[in-house]
């Protein structure tokens, strides 16, 4: 690798000049907007009114923005202090819908608070696991963070919102061209162009979309009636919080899965931000998980969607080598401000789906490659081959064969959910089993002494 490729533009604790801080924060905010499709779909699935949808989006933005600030600003005891913003978490989507249908928004809020508290309780437990996460497994987990966005990113590049729906050629052209602009600016660009390759690609994609598909232009014109400034109101749906014991188990499972995903994200953020570390430092990881749980609980309290750390934003940091945590704080502040400016947030949320998809593919590439480099940086042996191989077979099979797992025994369904948590769990367990002879040998040696 040459020096140019590894050079860091802004390190994790460095404060960039105001212009760069603002532009970089905006670049991250654009990626964070991808996740706002979730509260919109959520509101439509529970037949929420226009007013409910607007408030729900605003509360979700507030939770994600405040969570991003909490994660990076440097509060005592909480927050990883890495560039690792919060977004609306897809893992909670289905279960939150179930809660909303069963007991309305009050139950959804209550169960999200519970899930957040469970995530917080898990933070110190995961720190204790540091011995079971050798470097090659950390790398594998980071790579799987990138793999976990493949489904949503590719579907978005094709401009598809619903499973099985029709595809427009124009959307594919917009997606591929946007991705190419981002990639080429990153490869051949210098200075401004390289640092803001994603922003340039997204603006290019927007312009191309308006030229190719008039409906994108028409949708912008419809924003005319949306107010510039509005305070989210605690309407009828947002006044109560309730709990249901029957929902505790599914929400606990999702909280564990969410913690593992954030664990992977935080490991990736650490790897990118502190490349010199020989082994993971679990103190910021624990603090980060604590902040992640607190943000989720805050989302429930406010009445927004559960939030999660964003893999795509960490990938963007890796791609641009702009790693300053103050950018995460800046993005959080912008997200909070935009929650009160519905006209601007609506325009941003209208960004064509293929452009969003291209942005996630772009950032996912970095996550996958950083992870794989980390995995194979160690001396290799057959034990590692089988740990990594079987973990990948297991994790990826959950994405390739969902119908198989739909009919698997319940206990398998609990642990084999998505590629990221499944790969992580299987790799950790197999690594212990395949090294049992070495572990016993070490114990015997200790006893002899």
């Amino acid at each position: 690798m040459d020096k140019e490729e590894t050079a860091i533009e802004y390190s994790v604790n460095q404060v960039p000049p105001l212009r760069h801080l603002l532009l970089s924060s905006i670049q991250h905010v654009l990626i964070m907007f991808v996740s706002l499709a979730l509260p919109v779909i959520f509101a439509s699935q529970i037949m929420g009114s226009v007013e409910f949808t607007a408030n729900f989006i605003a509360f979700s933005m507030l939770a994600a923005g405040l969570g991003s600030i909490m994660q990076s600003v440097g509060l005592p005891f909480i927050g990883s202090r890495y560039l690792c913003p919060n977004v609306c978490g897809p893992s909670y989507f289905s279960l939150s819908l179930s809660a909303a249908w069963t007991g309305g928004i009050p139950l959804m809020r209550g169960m999200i608070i519970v899930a957040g508290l469970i995530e917080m309780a898990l933070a110190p437990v995961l720190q204790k696991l540091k011995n079971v996460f050798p470097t090659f497994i950390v790398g594998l987990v980071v790579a799987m963070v990138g793999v976990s966005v493949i489904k949503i990113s590719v579907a978005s590049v094709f401009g598809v919102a619903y499973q099985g729906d029709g595809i427009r050629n124009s959307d594919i052209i917009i997606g591929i061209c946007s991705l190419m602009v981002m990639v080429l600016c990153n490869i051949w660009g210098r200075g401004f162009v390289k640092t803001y390759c994603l922003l340039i690609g997204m603006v290019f994609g927007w312009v191309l979309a308006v030229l190719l598909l008039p409906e994108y232009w028409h949708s912008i014109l419809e924003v005319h009636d949306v107010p510039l400034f509005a305070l989210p109101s605690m309407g009828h749906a947002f006044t109560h919080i309730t709990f249901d014991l029957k929902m505790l188990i599914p929400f606990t499972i999702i909280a564990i899965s969410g913690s593992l995903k954030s664990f992977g994200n935080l490991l990736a953020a650490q790897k990118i931000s502190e490349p010199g570390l020989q082994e993971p430092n679990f103190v910021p990881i624990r603090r980060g998980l604590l902040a992640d749980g607190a943000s989720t609980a805050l989302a429930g309290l406010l009445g927004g969607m559960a939030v999660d750390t964003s893999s795509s934003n960490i990938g963007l940091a890796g791609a641009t080598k702009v790693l300053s945590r103050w950018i995460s704080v800046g993005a959080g502040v912008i997200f909070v401000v935009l929650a009160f400016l519905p006209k601007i947030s609506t325009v941003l949320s209208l960004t064509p789906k293929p452009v969003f998809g291209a942005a996630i593919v772009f950032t996912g590439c970095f996550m996958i490659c950083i992870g794989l480099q980390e995995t194979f940086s160690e001396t290799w042996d057959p034990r590692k081959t089988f740990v990594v191989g079987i973990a990948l077979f297991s994790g990826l099979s959950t994405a390739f064969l969902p119908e198989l797992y739909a009919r698997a025994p319940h206990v398998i369904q609990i642990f084999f959910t998505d590629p990221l948590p499944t790969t992580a769990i299987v790799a950790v367990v197999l690594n212990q089993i395949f090294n049992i002879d070495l572990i016993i040998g070490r114990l015997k040696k200790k006893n002899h002494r």
Partner: protein
Amino acid sequence: MTGCQSRYENLDLSMYQYRDTKNLVKFVYDAASILEKEGMKGLDYFRHNRTMFITEDYYLYIYDTDGINMFHAGMEHLEGKNLADITDKDGKKPYQMALRALEDPHNPHAWVHYSWWEPGKFFPVPKSSCHFKVTTPEGTQLFVGGGLNYPFEEKEFIRIIVDGAVDLIEKKGKSALSEISDPLSHYHYRDVCVFAFRPNGDIVISPIMGSSIYGIQLLECRDQVGHKPFMSALKKLKSKNEAWEIFMVKSRYQRQLVKKCLYLRKAVLSGEEIFVGAITNLPMPV
């Protein structure tokens, strides 16, 4: 902004969720516009540009009001034949259903659902078709249609049949019930059917079987997550004329729970209040 005006400005597609459905309606609407403008000469245009009116998913056809097929982009051999009484594998008559749908005020794009076959294939496929009526400049009455093979279920499809059933019940009273429960009627398609029940939950037309069966307490029915969709819909109907209720079911082929929705309306049957509804699938986000 006239330069940016869409030719579909008068075509309301907001009720559809799938892009495939919207594309089909636009496709048929465009063809109807050509025929309205060009008249019977337009038929020659369609015949000379046959490949423009057939895609992998749908094709165009045109009938006159006597049942003669004037143009068929997918099955040329049907042109000139009278298909007024042709039946599908279930005994449904697609042509008659289309004529009826074109007169239905609840069905703005004249949707009908039946079985057909794909050009060159030899097995039945489910189909949903939309239609537009055209009066050519010469004064000839025709209708233009196109259908999706293996269509997605749209919420709009059940709204059309439930609203139609409510009208029929209020107009014809008890005699409407046998028409609505007839599996050959347009109130039944694929797994969907219109059903009715009294406020205490007693079934008037079963949502499951051809005849009412014992043992189903609709109001107490729960979905996979414990939600009571019928009970919840009835609460909404205290202050509204119609209610949409979403619920979740377990599919043995999918990891995630599948979303379905119930559309329910109030109707008056011989002075007694009843509820009329139907259930369909909802689109699953990617």
